[in-house]
């Protein structure tokens, strides 16, 4: 059914169609509308046979989901930013225990300075936590990925994060196609746990493991993700057969076949990138783009296959590995190991800074002309940075950086 609704509401309604049994809710911007929407659906009776629990923290949210999942219930929660960091210990625990929880991340920056807007710092911080991470390009894909996420998680025995850009997707009103309950039921069978707490068949879950077996347990977590690497495209293909649209899978390519330059990115910015690719194609540039949907497991082989014919790779990153550069580009270089193509890192969109077509166009042109440094920071305000550095040089007690910079920006506006 076609509907013009907010991304969060669309995701909430889709989660409802997945017949969740326990939902843990704790508010954090920009994810809040999702759990609000789910709360309303449970109260209205649209979602039946479901426990909706308002908890006291994100740490509790995922902990309740852990208990519920170990108790055999299909469990869901959502978070973002500081909330994901606050539950970090439970994030690792859920995957270590092999519990197929699905969690939405409304991607948002991490403080300090506190910032509610979009980038990928939050989910990137948990990239090695053992969770599968799927990144949505559009609201339609965010919805579809949740349906696939439960299927992948429960088949493989591994939790899944569905990452959707905060505000850009969560708060955007778009036309989406909401599946029918029968369609979802046919695609997603009821949850059959691989391990469950049951007094008629008692097991101890979460026991201590020493050096004699720890590496084996960890390897099996890696093995699960390698299995997911095979299953993700198959499940995406099955989804296409049943729902009639392409969603999910490992990567999406756009005009890459003959491309000399390929731009790689995660999430919603791929829409802007595709527009720029089209513009530059009109100018006769052989450029294409690649959107990574499955960041964990990371599709090394598939990426190598798509990227190796290109002469140049540009990675647009909504994160910053401070002291190193970009996380995604480091992973891309791993996919291209032994090959000679330059991979240029471009840090963009931090803390919600708009990534414009104009800036991307300019950046791509310059990179193709070999006129850009690696690592490049898109639209960085060098004048403001110089002012702060000068201030720090001049005065030992130069004060809080964020406040100084905001004052400088204000002063400049007056000048």
């Amino acid at each position, binding site marked *: 059914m076609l509907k013009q609704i907010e991304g969060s509401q669309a995701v909430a309604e889709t989660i409802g169609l997945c017949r969740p*049994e*326990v939902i*843990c809710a704790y508010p954090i911007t920009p994810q809040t509308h999702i759990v609000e929407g789910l709360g309303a659906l449970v109260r209205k009776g649209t979602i039946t*046979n*479901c*426990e909706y*629990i*308002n*908890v*006291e*923290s994100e*740490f*509790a949210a995922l*902990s*309740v*989901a*852990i*208990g*519920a*999942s*170990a*108790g*055999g*219930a299909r*469990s869901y929660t959502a978070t973002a930013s500081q909330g994901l960091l606050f539950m970090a*210990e*439970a994030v690792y*625990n859920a995957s270590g*225990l092999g519990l197929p929880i699905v969690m939405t991340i409304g991607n948002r920056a991490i403080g300090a300075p506190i910032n509610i807007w979009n980038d990928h710092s939050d989910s990137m911080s948990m990239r090695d936590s053992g969770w599968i991470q799927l990144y949505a390009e559009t609201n339609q894909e965010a919805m579809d990925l949740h349906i696939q996420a439960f299927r992948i998680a429960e088949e493989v025995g591994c939790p899944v994060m569905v990452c959707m850009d905060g505000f850009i997707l969560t708060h955007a009103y778009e036309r989406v196609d909401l599946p029918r309950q029968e369609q979802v039921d046919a695609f997603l069978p009821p949850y059959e746990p691989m391990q469950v*707490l*049951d*007094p008629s*068949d*008692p*097991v*101890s*879950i*979460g*026991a*201590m*493991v*020493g050096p004699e*077996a720890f590496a084996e347990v960890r390897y099996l977590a890696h093995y699960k993700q390698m299995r997911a690497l095979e299953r993700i495209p198959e499940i995406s293909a099955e989804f296409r057969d049943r729902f009639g649209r392409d969603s999910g899978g490992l990567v999406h390519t756009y005009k890459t076949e003959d491309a000399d330059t390929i731009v790689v990115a995660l999430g919603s910015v791929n829409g802007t990138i595709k527009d720029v690719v089209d513009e530059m194609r009109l100018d006769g540039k052989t450029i294409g783009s690649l959107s990574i949907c499955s960041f964990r497991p990371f599709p090394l082989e598939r990426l190598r296959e798509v990227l190796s014919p290109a002469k140049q790779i540009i990675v647009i990153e909504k994160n910053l590995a401070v002291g190193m550069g970009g996380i995604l580009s480091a992973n891309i270089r791993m996919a291209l190991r032994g090959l000679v193509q330059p991979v240029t890192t471009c840090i963009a969109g931090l803390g919600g800074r708009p990534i414009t077509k104009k800036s991307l166009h300019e950046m791509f042109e310059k990179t193709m002309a070999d006129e850009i440094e690696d690592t490049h920071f898109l639209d960085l305000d060098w004048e403001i940075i110089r002012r702060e550095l000068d201030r720090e040089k001049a005065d030992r007690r130069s004060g809080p950086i964020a406040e100084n910079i905001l004052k400088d920006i204000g002063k400049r506006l007056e000048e």
Partner: protein
Amino acid sequence: MGQEQKVKFYQKGTYTVGNRLLNVKERSVQASMDRSNSLTCGHRACQGCGEALGARYAIDAAMRASRNQVIAVNATGCLEVFTTPYPETSWQMPWLHSLFGNAAAVATGVAAAMRVKGRTEVRTIAQGGDGGTTDIGFGCLSGMFERNDDVLYICYDNEGYMNTGVQRSSATPPTARTATTPVVGPEPGNVFGTGKNMPMLAMAHKIPYVATANVAALHDLEAKVTKAMHIKGARYIHIFVPCPLGWGSKPEETIHVARLAIKCGIFPLFEAEYGKVTSTVPIREQIPVDDYLKIQKRFSHLFKKGREEREKIAAIQAMADENIEYFNLLNKEGGS
């Protein structure tokens, strides 16, 4: 057994009844041949471990009360470590360990799963030490209480972080020596004026049931667990469990130490419903706190020959006296 005790053959100096003097039906679960033995032998607790005793007493009683339909969630700590060194487990029931600070929340999730699956006969217990309860797990515990989730939380209080090598927790009493409150400086041991009274904090949540229990009062402990198992909603039982290693007491004196804590008034036994005290276990003959403190090396710096810390001992005595007055423990009829 408080008010429910009809027999009057007490053990010396207490209102505790010898098991053999009771008719078979009133004897303890532990005395029964068919107890579930949920925490079975072969675990790796220290000699004389009060927590191992407390957990077995409590869980066996819970198993009987629910016809073996119990799922337990365990916080990280001694109890978790000594019962489940992979690939062995001492638990004869479904058991889940997640993290140090989230046992109450995980139990909320288990209880929710049982409800949604229609397994209403299955009861959920969360358990942990005092660190996992009063410190790192306090947020999740308070949340579980506040929502009145259908979970029985049992705290085994040995007054410190014993698993990591005896450090101070917010349940460590004043003057007690721990690895992080050493006996040095002007205020040796743990300082006065700190710490949390977890049972009172639980009561402040107005949950259906709160009780304190003690491994030296088996009938009382079992009766409280049994009662808690027949109540719906959030319940809290705080069990006093001596730790020979951390307290510097003799392993064979665990029950003795625990009994003296009752008799001197430092650990009052009571029940509360919806925030109001409903019963207490009276003290038959109050003893001075000295008797309780002296047999533990963690307090030995208070009793150095010729340099006894009478002021500090008096301050601890005042804490015991305050308990006795507040709970009216010298009233042999019990009640509040």
